[in-house]
């Protein structure tokens, strides 16, 4: 397993380099001008000078290796410097956003907590609801509970967050006035009251996103359980005199979790992608919102860096899913 993991890690290096190149060239070839949003009164020569100041005068074969150097060498060096107080970076140029003129990674670090809190929490909540729902739905197939679960899943799949989010705001913020409709990013958790406030402002975005996660994962869980409940080894377990609890929650669940864990692991990168629409609705300025604004403003370094980070996460979690498969299923051996 270790050799396999190391081999996969090594293979992922050329993969990621290729992905970086493709993203870079796509952005390079796409129309658009970072100066487009500048006032029209700025003379064309000045605009040209500003472009050159941003480094856009150089051809792509200069800028792409430069970006690679900044991403893989300079940024980690700054990171290490800030932790250990060393001076590895030696004042080298970091990746700078065209829009804010501040380092891209600083902005990402500011936005990450909101996304982790809201989107990450919704994923955890969604999975925690989905697993028991899937298990019970399968065990009591076609029961009222199963029908209700199927109905809620259908809603989760088919109702987009820009509808369910607004609906929740109308009900809980406008009509009932129980929850704030806007997520206050500057809010800091210091004591119990501020913690409760944090929970209250998280409830709606988390619920909107958790509904989608639950809809998806519970269906996977249900299908996997149904697959396994009909297997011969379940009959063997019953014939051995095992209680229903042991039969279902040990024998069947252990087998059913194998595909579901893979699905859960593969879904984790999408947390960091943020939930673009939901973040917009509840004014959560997380990573999804950051990416949208960067795209609108032709902020190439920001878009490039964010997109590449997502690519890294996706490649990593694919690897993690494969390794988990080997951990949970003894029939799969990679070495």
């Amino acid at each position, binding site marked *: 397993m270790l050799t396999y993991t190391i081999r996969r890690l090594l293979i992922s290096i050329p993969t990621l380099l290729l992905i970086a190149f493709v993203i870079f060239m796509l952005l390079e070839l796409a129309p658009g001008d970072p100066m487009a949003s500048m006032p029209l009164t700025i003379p064309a020569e000045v605009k040209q000078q500003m472009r050159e100041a941003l480094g856009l005068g150089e051809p792509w074969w200069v800028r792409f290796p430069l970006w690679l150097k900044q991403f893989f060498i300079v940024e980690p060096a700054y990171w290490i410097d800030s932790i250990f107080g060393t001076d590895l970076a030696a004042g080298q140029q970091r990746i700078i956003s065209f829009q804010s003129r501040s380092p891209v990674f600083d902005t990402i670090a500011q936005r990450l907590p909101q996304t982790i809190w809201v989107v990450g929490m919704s994923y955890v909540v969604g999975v925690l609801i989905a697993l028991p729902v899937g298990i019970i739905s399968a065990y009591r197939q076609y029961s009222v509970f199963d029908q209700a679960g199927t109905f809620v899943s259908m809603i989760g799949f088919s109702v987009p967050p820009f509808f369910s989010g607004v609906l929740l705001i109308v009900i809980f913020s406008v009509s009932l006035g129980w929850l704030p409709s806007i997520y206050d990013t500057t809010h800091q958790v210091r004591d119990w009251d501020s913690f409760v406030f944090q929970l209250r402002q998280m409830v709606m975005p988390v619920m909107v996103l958790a509904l989608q996660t639950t809809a998806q994962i519970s269906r996977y869980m249900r299908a996997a359980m149904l697959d396994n409940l009909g297997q011969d080894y379940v009959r063997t377990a019953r014939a*051995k005199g095992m209680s229903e609890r042991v039969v279902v929650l040990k024998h069947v669940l252990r087998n059913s979790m194998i595909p579901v864990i893979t699905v859960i692991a593969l879904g984790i990168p999408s947390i960091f992608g943020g939930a673009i629409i939901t973040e917009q609705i509840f004014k959560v300025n997380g990573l999804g919102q950051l990416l949208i604004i960067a795209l609108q403003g032709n902020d190439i370094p920001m878009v490039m860096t964010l997109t590449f980070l997502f690519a890294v996460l996706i490649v990593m979690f694919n690897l993690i899913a494969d390794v988990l498969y080997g951990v949970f299923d*003894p029939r799969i051996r990679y070495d």
Partner: protein
Amino acid sequence: MPNGAPAVLDVQGLKTVFRVRGGEVHAVNDVSFDLAAGELLGVVGESGSGKSVTMMSLLGLLPSPPADVRQGRVTFEGQDLLQVSDSKLRAVRGGRIGFVFQDPMTSLNPVFTVGYQIIETLRAHMGLSKSAARDRAQELLELVGIPSARDRLNDYPHQFSGGMRQRVMIAIALACDPKVLIADEPTTALDVTIQAQIIELMKDLRDKLGMAVIWITHDLGVIAGIADRVMVMYGGQVVEQAPVRDLFRNPKHPYTQALLTTIPKLSAERVRRLTIIEGQPPILGEAPTACSFRDRCPKAVAICAQQNPPRFDFGAGHDAACFVAAETRDAG
């Protein structure tokens, strides 16, 4: 043996119905039989004759719904298994009555080690400590003839061959010294040499441990080799029952007679085609009101279509559910 030892298992009037879309299937109709201590009872019949369903009904192993055990009494160790509480039934399953299933490739849980699956049974029924259960599991694997048993306890089912897996299944079934072992076509999924090994093993174990065995099969050759007594099932009913020699020498029911002619003989001319029984076994939408074999029976007479034949006694533990056979008996 049939009349000598007292019965360990006594089944009376068992009736199992499956509810399906738009009706019912009467899979087991008024089945009665008993099993003496240490006896090996062979149960034969075509696919769908209700052999397996009967045995699964005894221990409540059929999924319900759709299965519904409607009537009957299953007396085992002084209690009716169809009436006892779930926890008492669980104590019987795997503890007092062991079960070996047909397909060893799928009957073991792929994600647990073989040792775990044996130890789980031991701990549930005998309350052994972990190390004691481990020792016992090793003993069991040795008993069923698995080499280097101690090491193999840590292996997963996929690391065993089909025959070895069936040995593991037998070890699980034998784990708690059951009084009765029900083997549901234990050799059907195995190739012939492995089949012979498993049959030898089972004969051996039966003699060594002195338990009663119910052996379900559709292979009459196997039955002839190991059974003390044979029960022939057709259409969810017992059509004939006799000590094994008696059944092969002197079958009473036309279905049994037909079954015996289907066994290919090595001595027969090579050009002869295999004998078959014409027609299809019935699927019973309702409880039978006539002989269910009459459409395929060469000897059928008028009464066969009017009444469902009861089991007529032919003496010496031999009975058959056939009007024609009963008439011949009474005439002769």
